[in-house]
């Protein structure tokens, strides 16, 4: 991907665009050749309008005024993107932002689009809308490279599939002749992992009890309101929700990065509402952060220093006020082997590992301190299928031994498969609950947009997606209004 977009140079091999061999030394070269990239993490300036974001860096193309606006409207209409040029990006929801990213690329004249995990942040209805956009682009003669680890999506949208594992092409497939299972086996190289948890291990010993938790933004607006739940030993509580509805704040409040404005948090029978982060971690709260680069790792530090991070006061990392480097390094080696972190050694920087291996290191680190309560925010985001299965296994194993887990994920299959209990968060409130044994991703998806509340029952007779026709038609996803 980086090579295709000119961010990195290949050591060997060639790239041909329209039959012509090319070599890129920067993304600018790639853009000239009509290759555009929609990044997984959006590259938009929040405080600028859509128009300003689109022209930024390409002012020479159509200027910054009426001509640019005309061009944007024209592209938007042609591909059914429904972009409003004068809205501020900060007012837009995730799906709308993504369409702005796509428009940005088209505006620069791209004929080949690279989409990196575009559906990771979308609810099922938005995914369908995105796929409609992609079909539109395809019909206009553009090529799309769609990178995803979600098999169903790839099968439904692609005309041709190439499977890459550990940096090499392991095969190609035609969607019409391939089942998800076959594709998955190609990706993993062996048997297929499933997130299903076998038997319930839920006990009646509450580990974490959250009561009427409320967290306010600077202006007094509630980011979290009336959050109440209990997680027992051996229970996985899954939180479903569109990103930005309070998940990040909930995690911050539980780990102590933000302090609740009212309400209480209890760990077993101790009230921890006023504890600082370090004390919470020492007392057995494990934390797999949502953004591992920002909150879980020191990217330029060696692996063994990353093993110390977050547990600097605990054994084996410290003896009194002194660090115990030997023990920490030995334990890092143990984690690397036990959790199958693929690295040539523990002295390399965390940045040089792949996302999946970084995540395995984090999981290994957190599990090594025998947490009583684990916060797992998107534990398998951006992680390859093999590492995903391993991480699921570790969570399940710890659950069997009585760990309480709060699981937050945008991957609904993962949520449904791993959780013992499901709650839906919307606009900072827990609005619905569901039984993971019967619920489908579509039903969960509609609750995530605020369309359904209370206890969600699986309806055998409902047409899949029949309850959400308006969402499909409307180019603006409903969560835009909710913000």
């Amino acid at each position, binding site marked *: 991907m980086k090579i295709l977009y000119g961010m990195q140079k290949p050591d060997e091999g060639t790239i041909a665009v329209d039959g012509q061999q090319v070599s890129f030394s920067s993304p600018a070269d790639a853009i000239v050749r009509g290759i555009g990239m929609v990044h997984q993490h959006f590259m938009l300036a929040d405080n600028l309008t859509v128009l300003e974001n689109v022209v930024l860096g390409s002012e020479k193309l159509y200027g910054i005024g009426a001509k640019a606006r005309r061009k944007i409207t024209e592209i938007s209409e042609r591909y059914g993107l429904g972009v409003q040029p004068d809205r501020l990006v900060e007012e837009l929801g995730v799906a709308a932002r993504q369409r702005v990213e796509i428009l940005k690329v088209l505006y620069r004249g791209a004929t080949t689009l690279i989409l990196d995990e575009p559906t990771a942040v979308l609810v099922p209805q938005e995914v369908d809308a995105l796929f409609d956009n992609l079909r539109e682009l395809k019909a206009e003669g553009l090529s799309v490279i769609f990178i995803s680890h979600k098999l169903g999506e790839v099968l439904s949208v692609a005309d041709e599939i190439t499977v890459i594992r*550990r*940096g090499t092409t392991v095969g190609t497939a035609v969607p019409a002749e391939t089942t998800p299972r076959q594709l998955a086996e190609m990706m993993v190289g062996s048997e297929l992992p499933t997130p299903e948890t076998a038997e319930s291990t839920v006990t009646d010993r509450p580990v974490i009890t959250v009561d009427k938790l409320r967290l306010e933004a600077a202006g007094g607006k509630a980011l979290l309101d009336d959050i109440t739940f209990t997680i027992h030993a051996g229970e996985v509580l899954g939180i479903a929700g569109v990103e930005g509805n309070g998940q990040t704040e909930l995690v911050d409040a539980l*780990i*102590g*990065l933000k302090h609740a404005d009212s309400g209480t948090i209890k760990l077993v029978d101790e009230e921890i509402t006023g504890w*600082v*982060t*370090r*004390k*919470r*971690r*020492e007392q057995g709260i494990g*934390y797999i*952060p949502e953004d591992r680069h*920002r*909150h*879980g*790792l*020191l*990217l*330029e*530090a060696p692996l*063994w*220093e990353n093993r*110390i*991070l*977050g*547990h*600097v*006061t605990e054994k084996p990392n*410290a003896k009194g*006020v*002194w*660090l115990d*480097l030997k023990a920490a*390094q030995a334990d890092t*080696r143990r984690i*690397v*082997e036990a959790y199958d*972190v*693929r*690295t*040539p*050694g*523990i*002295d*390399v*920087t965390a*940045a*040089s*590992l792949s996302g999946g291996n970084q995540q395995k290191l984090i999981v290994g680190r957190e599990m090594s301190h025998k947490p009583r309560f684990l916060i797992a925010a998107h534990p398998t985001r951006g992680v390859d299928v093999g590492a995903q299965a391993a991480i699921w296994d570790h969570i399940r194993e710890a659950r069997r031994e009585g760990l309480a887990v709060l699981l937050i994920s945008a991957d609904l299959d993962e949520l449904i498969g791993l959780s013992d209990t499901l709650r839906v968060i919307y606009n900072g409130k827990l609005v619905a609950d569901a039984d993971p044994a019967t619920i489908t991703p579509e039903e969960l998806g509609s609750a995530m947009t605020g369309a359904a509340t209370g206890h969600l029952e699986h309806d055998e007779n409902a047409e899949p997606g029949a309850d959400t026709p308006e969402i499909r038609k409307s180019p603006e996803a409903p969560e835009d209004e909710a913000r």
Partner: protein
Amino acid sequence: MKKFDKERVLLAVAGPVIALAVAFVLSAIVLLASGKSPVEPYALMFEQIGFSDIQVLVINQASMYYIAALAVAIGFRMNLFNIGVDGQYQLAAMMAAVVGAHMNLPAAIQIPLLLLTAVCTGAFWSGIAGVLKVTRGVSEVVATIMLNAIATSVIAYLWLPNVFGVKVGNNNTTGEMHESGWVPGIDMGDAGEIYGLVFLAVLLGIGYWVVLNRTRFGFDLRASGASESAAAASGVDPKRMVLTAMLISGGIAGLAGLPILLGDTHTYSLNFPTGIGFLGIGIALLGRNSPVGIAFAALLWAWLDKASPELDFHGYDKEIAVIMQGLIVLSVVVSYEAVREWGLRRQQRRVGAELAAGHVLGADNNTTKEVAGR
């Protein structure tokens, strides 16, 4: 694994070497442009290294640069920019001089008392900036610059004859300190005397390394510098860390003027060296915040300072040394960032290559040597 260790040494050395080479070439161009020989000034300055009196001067000067640079570096390690080392050390030196002139205790108590006075004064001055940053969100850069200006005024006030000042001719001084507060130096005969507090500089350097690389506190501090968000999530209290780091930085800064104060001048006067705090910033940058690197950088700076007067006797301007110092700082900033990125990418590629070749930890256990901290 050996490969990665060598790699680290290579990366650590490449930055300064490139920067110095570029700076020397650019300085040569400046000399050429002014119609002078681009080589002879260097030859003259290198010649100076051989003289023992210059060596003593360089070591004495370097000790002060070293302490100031350590003060800056401790801030740098957690992304705090203490620009106020200059004000902190001057004020601290003055307070130590005042205490030394007005109290007379046995040397075993007097000298630690003076050191403590300097540490507390420096920490107090930088602590103001720390408190402002933690409570009001004031940038420490702005606050410490302002405090430098205020320190200058405070010093001018304390120099008034009716406060602590003693006029000696046209010079403002704080009066001669009692001899119990003088730190004896090492007599080098005709070459002069090496300040006793040069050893304090060495001890501080060792202490800096031990605290940063071997203690929990040091780890928290480095983590805060590497990633504020990750440090907070790991349980570091960011505000307390900012305040602590500012206090330590200021405390060390307070000691920067003492080698010359207790070893030579014994009074704080108009002739007391100024600007050491600012030079310390460049030296900390060149030394990559490492105690050994800073030592080399401090010696280099001191050499440029003490060898350049010779140029005046040969028809060159000694300011060429100052130009060179400026060029070094400029090239350092550019070359370090370039080398850092290059190194990261290179390591990523190598890790990829090693993995592809099947060299996974656990497959072969030849990993005995580890390098501790940076």
